[in-house]
């Protein structure tokens, strides 16, 4: 009986292997089948690639990007893609390396042109001077990885995407270049609006739960009074919360910024004991939303929270500092 079981299992597995090996490989010169970690990046891949790409995002946009719950469809799409776009800087470190390893897709392994890190070349904030968990649980060796919220991030990420698509489909280089130029113009116009908003937000203050908005706050010149997490990735203790509440009471016009996935009971404890208002901000685009629309929503939310008028398109066209070619 035992031997029959053994033979039966062998036959089953050989059949399964034959079915598995019958999967078709991606067409070499059709649209680039791509996977992006964030909806922001997926949008930019569509902006630059147009009909030359078919891209799917893994994140929905509402979750903690450090701890995404992967589904079987993510493994399958990653195993079949020709290009995989990630932010990098260890933002997706908890799940991307394992996903890529499990996918066994040789085109997107480290060092291959199919694995694209769109943050490459960006100026990074908060690079730790020393690597020790004493400084926090969420310590990113390469610096704060939430670069997708920087004002110039769209142009930088789009340029990286353009370069990688040109490498994968050189004959469509002119098309990718033209699409990049068009996006660059749209982004610069938006950045002028955001710069004008920054002028109106001068001297405004915020309290944050985690450090995911620091690039945005840096670009807007908003002062961070306190962080509800005592150290990155460490839930607040009662003693630390008491200190944050004291600070919040001294600055009733400050806005408390948090994300949907944060420990918002702790945030509510701060907000409930002072006159500050709470603002739940997205830390990336949501589902099919574009990067530009997502950034617009974030800036409008901040304008509303601080009760300032949001700059109009006309204001952008008039004067205002035109963003330089420098990326964050």
């Amino acid at each position, binding site marked *: *009986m*035992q*031997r029959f*079981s*053994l033979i039966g*299992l*062998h036959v*089953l*597995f050989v059949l*399964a*292997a034959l*079915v*598995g*090996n019958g*999967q078709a490989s991606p067409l070499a010169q059709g649209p680039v089948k791509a996977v992006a970690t964030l909806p922001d990046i997926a949008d930019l891949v569509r902006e630059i690639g147009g009909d030359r790409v078919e891209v799917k995002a893994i994140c*929905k946009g*509402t*979750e*903690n990007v450090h*701890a*995404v*719950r992967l*589904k*079987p*469809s993510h*493994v*399958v*799409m990653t*195993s*079949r893609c020709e290009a995989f776009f990630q932010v990098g800087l260890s933002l997706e470190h908890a799940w991307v390396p394992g996903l890529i390893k*499990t996918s*066994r897709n040789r085109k997107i392994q480290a060092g291959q042109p199919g694995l694209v890190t769109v943050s490459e070349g960006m100026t990074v904030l908060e690079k730790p001077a020393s690597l020790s*968990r004493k400084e926090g*649980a*969420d310590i990113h060796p390469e610096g704060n990885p939430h670069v997708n919220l920087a004002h110039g991030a769209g142009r930088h990420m789009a340029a990286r995407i353009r370069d990688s698509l040109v490498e994968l489909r050189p004959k469509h280089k002119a098309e990718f270049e033209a699409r990049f130029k068009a996006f660059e113009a749209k982004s610069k116009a938006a950045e002028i609006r955001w710069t004008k908003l920054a002028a109106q937000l001068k001297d405004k203050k915020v309290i944050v739960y985690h450090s995911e908005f620091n690039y945005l706050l840096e670009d807007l010149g908003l002062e961070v009074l306190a962080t509800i997490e005592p150290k990155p*990735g*460490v*839930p607040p203790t009662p003693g630390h919360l008491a200190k944050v509440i004291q600070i919040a009471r001294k600055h009733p016009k400050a806005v408390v910024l948090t994300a*949907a*996935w944060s*420990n918002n009971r702790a945030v509510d404890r701060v907000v409930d004991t002072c006159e500050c208002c709470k603002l739940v901000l997205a830390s990336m685009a949501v589902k099919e939303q574009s990067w530009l629309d997502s950034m617009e929503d974030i800036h409008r939310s901040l304008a509303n929270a601080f009760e300032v008028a949001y700059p109009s398109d006309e204001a952008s066209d008039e004067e205002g500092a035109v963003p330089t070619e420098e990326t964050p």
Partner: protein
Amino acid sequence: MKPSIQILALATLTAPVMAQGTTFSTPGMPSSGRTGQTDRFSTEFNPAIGGVIDTLITHLNSDGSGPDGFDLTLRSFEGTVNTWIDPNTWAYGVLVGTEEEGIAVEEAAVIYEGFDGNSNLKAGRFFVDFGKQMQAHTHDLPTFERPAVLSAYLGEELGGTGLQYGNWFPAGDSGAIRYSFGLYDSLVQGHSHGGHGDEEEGAAQAVNDYQEADELSYAARITGFHDAGENGVFQWGVSMRGLPEFAFDADLDDGTELTAEGMSNHVLGLDLTYGWGDDTGTKTWTVGGEYLRLSGEIGAEVDDAGTPGVFGDDTLEVLDSDRDGFYLWVDRGFDQNNSVGVLYSAFEHAEDGAPEQSELTAYYSRNLTEYSRLRVGVTMTETDDGDDSTALMVQFTNFFGSHAHGVNW
């Protein structure tokens, strides 16, 4: 040794070994890397190192003849290394020290992934691919201990030294099927720390040091994963563990040893798991269960049918039968740091009369950070023989450095 194996062994021994560690050596001395990029004292290519300290405080209250009181235990100190050996091969090792058993190599395996497609070959000592919870080390389990039915039918740990082939393939756009098959030196219970045979006093399962191919233990698993809506994942699995040839030894009080040889049995497992998370991924539900059937020659008992008190005429009666058991588990994650859960397990013992045992565990887990977990809970055990007990437990588990095992999906 068969000729083909001799040729393979000879080829392996005569092949140049390009290990790291350049140094001065004379011809004929142990080979050192002729193209080595590191020397004896460099650290650039060292493996990722990690550790786990798992402590447990238990207060046990037994109704029968069992023990009562507190037990404070360093359950384990685990050291792990993970590394790529070359672009196609990676390896990991797990050393575990416990207060009761000292230091043991729980896992040390090499995984080759250089084939086309998604297949791999794993060799060495490792936890066998069976069901959802048998692959995990105790500190990674959602509860304090492994579900009672798994411990009873497969052992506290199901580690084996052998070779396992694994593969996976897509099932449509939103699913995947994975399977594995492995042959092992031995998968008898209590074989988790390298020795042959159970350490339990009085009775032991054992296998021969050298076995024919059809006497080797085997394990196999096939499992499918499928998206279940926007936020859910459903998984099913079928697993099997077989012992085609083993002996059952019993030591009598006068030193007489009785042995039943040529025994065989297998365990079949069916598992279903559903996981759901809200849009933020922090509020979660996990519901799962596993059914096991132990079949064949599942044990042996000393028959004292001769003259009572005289050991010389005792015989070992083999029990050839089936036994069933299962566990069900529900876990609710409230946010990134807090979760509660309940696990219920019931099974028939592999003894004459099939006495039943059930176990209910309820727990609360608090992740102080990503690397530190505090868990409190209670386990109530009921048995047909009246040895009921209630255990209150506090578990404090801390992870440092990199932490990973060879766990499959």
